Every structure is written in structure tokens, then in C-alpha cells.
């Protein structure tokens, strides 16, 4: 939509940090959650935006510095 996967990932990670939503959960819990976990969404955005793996890893590191605990 915005053709900007990096900012999409940053926005999403920020929202998870603010709302304290779980970053990861098991498959059974996932069936009952209203939204997929952050890790799965980030992967989906990176894939659909053809984001290189190295850049994705840099963005994840940057978000960790900003307080997002990935696991």
C-alpha cells in the first residue's frame, strides 16, 4: 500500500511496544487471538516488500534499542 516496508515494520513494532501486545505466542493461542503475532507480521511485510534480510535485521536491531523485546 505505502511501498515502504521499513516504516511499516517500525510503525507496527512501535504499536506493539505502546499497547504491550504479545510479540509471539504459540500456534494454539494464535488460533484464538484477534491478530497474528508481531514476528509473523514483520516477516510477511518484509517478504511482500522484497526487503533484504540484512536490512530487516538492522531494522529489528534498531527497534530493540527503542525497547521492543522480540523474544
Amino acid at each position, binding site marked *: 500500500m*505505502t511501498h515502504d516496508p521499513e516504516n511499516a515494520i517500525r*510503525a507496527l513494532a512501535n504499536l506493539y511496544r505502546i499497547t504491550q501486545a504479545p510479540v509471539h505466542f504459540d500456534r494454539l493461542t494464535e488460533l*484464538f487471538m484477534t491478530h497474528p503475532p508481531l514476528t509473523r507480521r514483520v516477516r510477511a511485510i518484509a517478504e511482500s516488500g522484497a526487503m533484504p534480510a540484512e536490512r530487516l535485521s538492522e531494522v529489528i536491531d534498531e527497534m530493540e534499542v527503542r525497547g521492543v523485546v522480540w523474544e
Partner: protein
Amino acid sequence: MTDPRASRWITYRRWIHIIMLGTVAAWWALWDFQRGSALIPNPAPRLIWIAPALDKPFLFWVLPIGGIAVAQMVCYSLDKTFLGQRWTVSDILRLACWRTISPTVGLLFVATGFEAIYNRSLVGILWLVAAAILAIVGTSRSRSAEGIKLQLVKGGELYKRAFVLAKHMRVPLKRVYVVPAGRGHLTNAYGLSQSIAVTDNYGKFLSGPELDFVIGHELGHVKAQHGRKKLLIVGTVFAGIALACFFLPPILIPFRPLLDIPVMYRRFLLSIFSLVVLNTPPMRPVLH
């Protein structure tokens, strides 16, 4: 920094919600099986302290509704502790009341409607209509109790960004709303019919291009008409089951409680279908 305690509570809360719905479903199915089969004893005669005429109102209405209302009050009180929400006692009572009405009371109306339809009474349709009205009113009132009050905006950064993106995505956007974050510390966005709504604290947390992602996501909901499709799916499932109940051959009557399952667990069944048959994760909206 993410607080693991808060994240865990959000997961537990979801499970509590599922267990609450599951309890109502099990109660309903037990009730239904008990009437259709001699295998399950009738619990009513044991309740000697209740007048016989009040057995059904107590067991079918008061007990599940009261139990769920109390559980909802406990959950909202714990939200204050774990999520830092500033609900007042009056907020908690209102939230628990409307969250019990929709979906619990609505589902009991559906159960009563199906029971009437099983018995070839068209009054059942009135119960189903009443359940639909209750679901709409209950959802709208519980959103209002959570502080979700839409305020139309006609200018500003959000408005401009929304209309630029809508034009780019060819979405027929007509209105943009902001929602006060309020005592529930809401941070969310919503895609409605030809309009979007974003809580007023987004600017504090997200930069311009990040905000575009949120707006784009909500415009995606508007373009794909997700709200309308959801209503259509729920309506079709309910109408299909009502028809199945009405035309059920007598030999299959003892198995009719099995028809209760898709009503209660439609989301779960859709997730299973998505995972097992389509081999894709149940991709639900990123935000609401």
C-alpha cells in the same frame, strides 16, 4: 520497553474470553442434549431451593449471565493493574454490563431462537432478530463505555494524509475521525464503511511515514469491505443453521446440539479452515 507481565495478561485475557464463551456454549449444548437424550440427567430436581417454575430461568439465564458478568468485572479490574488503565468503578460496571450483553446474552437469545425453530415455531425468528439487535446495540454501547467516541475532523495532518493515500489507493473515503485515547489508554485505528478512525495519540508515537502505514492499513479494510463481509458471513452461518434446524429429519434430532458448535466457534473454525485447508495463517487485520 515492553512489559512481559502486561503481554502475558493480554494473552491470558484472550484465553479467559474463550473460556467464558466456551462455558456458555457447553452450558447450552448440555441443556440441549439433556432435553434430547435420557443419557444426561436433568439437574433441575436437585435444586430444591428454587421453585420448579424458576428452574429454567435460573439455570439457563441467571447462572451463565451472572457468572460471566462477575468474570468480566474481575478482568476489567485486573486491566487496571496490568495495563495501567484508569477505569473508574462506574466504567467497570458499564463495561462488564455491555460486554455481557454482547455476546453472552445475545448468544442465549440465539439458543432460545434455535430451540423454538427446532420445535417448528416461527417465534424463533423473532428471537434471532432480537439477538442481532442486541449484538449491534451491545457492541456499540460497549465501545462507547471503552471511550470510543468518534469525532469528525475536517483538516490537519491525519485528514490530508488519509485523503492523499485514499486517492492513491482508489478508496472511496468520505470521512476521517479521531477517537480520544481516554481512560482506557486506547491506541488503535479502525476501518469503517467509507471512513477511517484513529486514536488521537498516534501522532505522539508514530512519525509521518509510519502513520501512513496505519492509515493505509485501515483504507485496506474500507476497500475490501471487511465490515460488510463479516456481517454477511455471520448472517449466512446463522440463517443456514436456522434452516438446518427447521428441516432436520427426526432421526437426526438427538444430534442437533452439534449444530450449536459452528455458531459458538465460527472464528475458531474459520482459523482451522484457514490453517489446515488453505495452509495459510489466519491473517486478520493488523489493527482493528
